[in-house]
């Protein structure tokens, strides 16, 4: 009997090639001689008018094949000279703006693309970039939220106040509720910028096939179909002329969902014009200054509550720094504004935000996507209420929880997918009990006192979150059983290390009754699955997992029908075990799936021994069509999954930290996670996702920030100064416990898990540091130097 693989710690199939150095990442594609390499001239100024660009020095440079500036784009197609698309329009985004593939007249951040050079190799291409002379009229840059709000200077002349969008949502009457509440507090908070920083940057390789009149593109992306559509539109091609293949991707974390980047368009344009393969591989400095960042927000919160700490009214105002352009619309601040609510149900809620232009790199979702900011706001508020009332922080949270019997719970707001914010399921009180046990919440006061007696400062913090995962619109799955019995599975979304090839194979093996080893999964190849959306919002397992599960069901139904004919049995009496269809209780009566696949495709010609079974003189009834009406040849199943709305995962983190009285260094002694993503497909992989998320959360809370100066120069655009934690900065051992509250929305009862680990990092560590230091922590990240400054301010 085949063991069910759902829920098992199955080792990853993709590891074999990665461990041998045989992964194929975008920069590994077409390494052979003859591929041309691109480099980009980027603006050294945060805000400037371009007076003149002189590329004449490049004209006779050895090894340089082409140089493009904005003026060349319209010659290729009119669309290339238009601004890049605004991907997610929203009615409140009244002043959206996107950049051009190459800057037209003006640059708005250090790093904006101005000219594109194609040369024999990247070394020569960089030499050539250095020879381009640009005459700039430098303008005053707008850097940071306070400067953007003050609007003494404008990022875009015609956008008043630097405001792209002003958006408000209301449930009940928050202001009246706060005014009438027994207690009131207000908080001002802020979170700095950070970024995804996958170990592999962006990259794209293009080949224009003159014989087929079509484009083949390899992209390091979270959305192959997104790249395909964008490139087709801009290059004036039919969708069917563009193939996008996602090779192995060295991490995404959000930054690779936003397409097209200028290079996505310029590389294929150059490939077509030059008739050569062209490659662009972003370097690390470019990744800092010309991809995307996230997080930066300032927040103001007013809250009214009763004696128990129950929130009666919550009024949140925040200012979101989206950088120089808005290609990804308002997704990040909308998520902040809605997911801020977490597991709680304030009766009355008003949230209003402004999305602001600054002369800095654009902001698009980074793992967690606006939630770390929202959770920071809400959880700091909970802690403030508890402190004000002198109550235990877990008690104040508990009285505000949505109860298990209140699901589905409708918040009365509109979520990031344009659908109502309705939580499908959850059990927050049980999560709270688990996290308290895991971190040792009730024992902590004794530990804290004991440490205090030794002159050591210990603090504990807790933070809760709810995460809308698995948002639509849809994903598809295609399952093809080959005549060898091997099963080929395709889904269109892409993979960046999450182990999709493993978990999807687990689902197919379970549903079809085949061996796990016989299932092979392909992701992110538009040739195999042209209809797809992408990997973001912790949606791959929910969306593609469900679609593949449904597709496997279809393939199975068909297999059983054909096998039933062949075995002269009722389909209901059949089972498939290890790739063999047999009559239940009569294992001798069987046919293997490969043979069923042969029979599914009536043939005129026998190409091998096996296919003789399906030729016209060996199979079928002479008076019936070889392919039954309404059926298709081949043993395949295809299906799509499109949910009514998102499914809501949740979790709670807690940490015990020590702050050094001498050096203000912050040490995490214990970090605990309780995580509920519904049914687990592969706990090993889910835990890996949590570990990685926690490390990014710690990075965002204690180490990582984008240090812009007033001139808009990013001062730490390297791994020397942007401090991604090494192992030495991550606690030794992250305690993880699971709760499995299944989602009623999908056939597997699963919820997304990819982003969860990162979400409460800043909130939980701020709380723990505050507890250790007994002074309010309102801005993250916090370094030892920041903490030292905070102490000085507090004692003055």
């Amino acid at each position: 009997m085949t063991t069910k693989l759902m829920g098992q710690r199955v080792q990853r199939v993709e590891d074999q090639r990665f461990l041998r150095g045989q992964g194929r990442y975008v920069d590994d594609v077409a390494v052979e001689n003859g591929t041309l390499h691109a480099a980009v001239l980027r603006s050294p100024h945060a805000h400037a008018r371009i007076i003149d660009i002189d590329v004449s020095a490049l004209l006779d440079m050895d090894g340089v094949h082409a140089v493009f500036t904005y003026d060349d784009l319209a010659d290729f197609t009119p669309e290339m000279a238009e601004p890049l698309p605004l991907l997610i329009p929203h009615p409140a985004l009244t002043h959206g703006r996107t950049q051009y593939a190459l800057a037209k007249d003006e640059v708005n951040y250090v790093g904006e693309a101005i000219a594109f050079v194609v040369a024999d190799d990247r070394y020569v291409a960089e030499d050539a970039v250095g020879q381009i002379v640009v005459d700039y009229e430098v303008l005053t840059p707008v850097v940071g939220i306070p400067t953007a709000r003050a609007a003494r200077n404008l990022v875009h002349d015609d956008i008043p106040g630097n405001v792209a969008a002003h958006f408000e949502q209301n449930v009940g009457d928050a202001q009246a509720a706060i005014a009438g509440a027994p207690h009131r507090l207000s908080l001002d908070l802020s979170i700095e910028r950070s970024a995804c920083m996958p170990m592999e940057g962006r990259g794209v390789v293009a080949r224009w096939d003159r014989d087929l009149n079509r484009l083949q593109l390899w992209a390091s992306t979270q959305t192959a179909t997104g790249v395909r559509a964008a490139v087709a539109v801009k290059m004036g091609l039919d969708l069917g002329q563009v193939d996008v293949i996602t090779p192995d991707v060295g991490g995404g974390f959000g930054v690779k969902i936003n397409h097209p980047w200028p290079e996505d368009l310029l590389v294929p344009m150059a490939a077509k014009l030059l008739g050569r393969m062209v490659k662009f591989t972003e370097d690390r400095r470019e990744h800092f200054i010309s991809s995307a960042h996230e997080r930066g927000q300032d927040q103001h919160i007013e809250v009214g509550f009763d004696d128990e700490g129950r929130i009666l009214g919550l009024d949140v105002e925040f200012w979101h720094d989206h950088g120089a352009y808005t290609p990804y619309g308002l997704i990040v601040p909308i998520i902040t504004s809605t997911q801020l609510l977490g597991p709680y149900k304030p009766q009355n809620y008003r949230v209003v935000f402004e999305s602001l232009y600054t002369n800095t790199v654009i902001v698009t979702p980074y793992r967690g996507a606006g939630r770390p900011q929202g959770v920071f706001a809400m959880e700091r508020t909970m802690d403030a209420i508890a402190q004000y009332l002198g109550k235990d922080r877990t008690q104040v949270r508990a009285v505000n929880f949505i109860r298990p019997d209140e699901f589905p719970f409708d918040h009365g707001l509109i979520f990031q997918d344009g659908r109502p914010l309705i939580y499908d399921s959850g059990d927050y009180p049980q999560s709270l009990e688990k996290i308290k046990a895991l971190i040792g919440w009730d024992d902590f006061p004794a530990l804290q006192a004991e440490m205090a007696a030794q002159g050591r400062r210990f603090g504990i913090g807790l933070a809760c979150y709810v995460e809308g995962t698995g948002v639509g619109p849809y994903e598809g799955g295609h399952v093809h059983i080959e005549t060898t019995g091997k099963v080929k599975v395709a889904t269109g979304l892409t993979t960046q290390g999450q182990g999709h090839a493993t978990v999807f194979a687990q689902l197919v093996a379970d549903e079809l009754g085949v061996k796990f080893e016989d299932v092979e999964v392909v992701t992110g190849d538009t040739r195999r699955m042209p209809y797809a959306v992408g990997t973001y919002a912790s949606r791959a397992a929910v969306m593609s997992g469900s679609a593949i599960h449904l597709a496997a069901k279809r393939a199975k139904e068909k297999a059983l029908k054909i096998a039933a004919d062949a075995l002269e049995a009722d389909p209901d009496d059949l089972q498939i075990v290890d790739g063999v269809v047999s009559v239940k209780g009569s294992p001798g009566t069987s046919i293997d799936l490969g043979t069923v696949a042969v029979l599914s495709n009536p043939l005129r010609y026998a190409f091998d021994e096996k296919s003789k079974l399906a030729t016209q003189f060996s199979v079928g009834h002479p008076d019936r069509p070889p392919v039954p009406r309404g059926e298709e040849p081949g043993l395949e199943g295809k299906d799509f999954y499109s949910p009514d709305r998102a499914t809501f995962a949740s979790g709670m983190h807690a940490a015990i930290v020590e702050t050094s009285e001498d050096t203000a260094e912050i040490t995490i002694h214990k970090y605990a996670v309780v995580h509920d993503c519904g049914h687990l497909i592969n706990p090993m992989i889910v835990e890996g996702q949590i570990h990685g998320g926690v490390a990014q959360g710690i990075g965002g809370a204690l180490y990582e920030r984008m240090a812009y100066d007033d001139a808009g120069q990013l001062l730490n655009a390297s791994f020397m100064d942007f401090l991604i934690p090494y192992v030495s900065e991550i606690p030794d051992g992250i305690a993880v416990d699971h709760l499995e509250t299944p989602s009623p929305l999908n056939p597997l009862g699963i919820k997304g898990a990819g982003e969860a680990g990162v979400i409460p990092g800043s909130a939980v560590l701020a709380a723990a540091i505050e507890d250790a230091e007994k002074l309010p922590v309102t801005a993250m990240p916090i370094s030892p130097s920041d903490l030292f400054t905070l102490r000085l301010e507090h004692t003055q």
Partner: protein
Amino acid sequence: MSEELHPVRLTVNGVTHRVEVPARRLLSDALRHDVGLTGTHVGCEHGVCGACTVLVDGDPVRSCLMLAVSAADHEITTVEGLAAPDGTLSPVQQAFAECHGLQCGFCTPGFLTTITAGLRENPCPSHEQAREMIAGNLCRCTGYQNIVKAVERAAQIGASDKAAS
């Protein structure tokens, strides 16, 4: 004027490659683009991330901080050279698979080479030493928890292999 090319003999995983490269070609680029061994990955090109770590005469070295011309006549081992000739994974590779020590796989070659050399020097590391062994490599996916486990597991496999042989 075209750039002067230097003939360089690179010995990689026991195989000698004769390449002609400009002086400025980084070893990482020479391995990837001139020799065609793309298992060595480039994550930062300024020596911080460790993804490009290879073994030079047995010692882990950042291949982005070494010129190809300087590597002439030294023995280089890349990730492609870690498995046995028959394809059997090395103890470190096997431990990474068992412990889920990798996700996107991009930083993995640098960890594998570093740990391979680390365990050669110290076959039975303490838990702290296991952490120290990987303290110069960045991983953005795993949070390191399972990589530390993999170091310890690899030491175990190495010890039992030795006992068996």
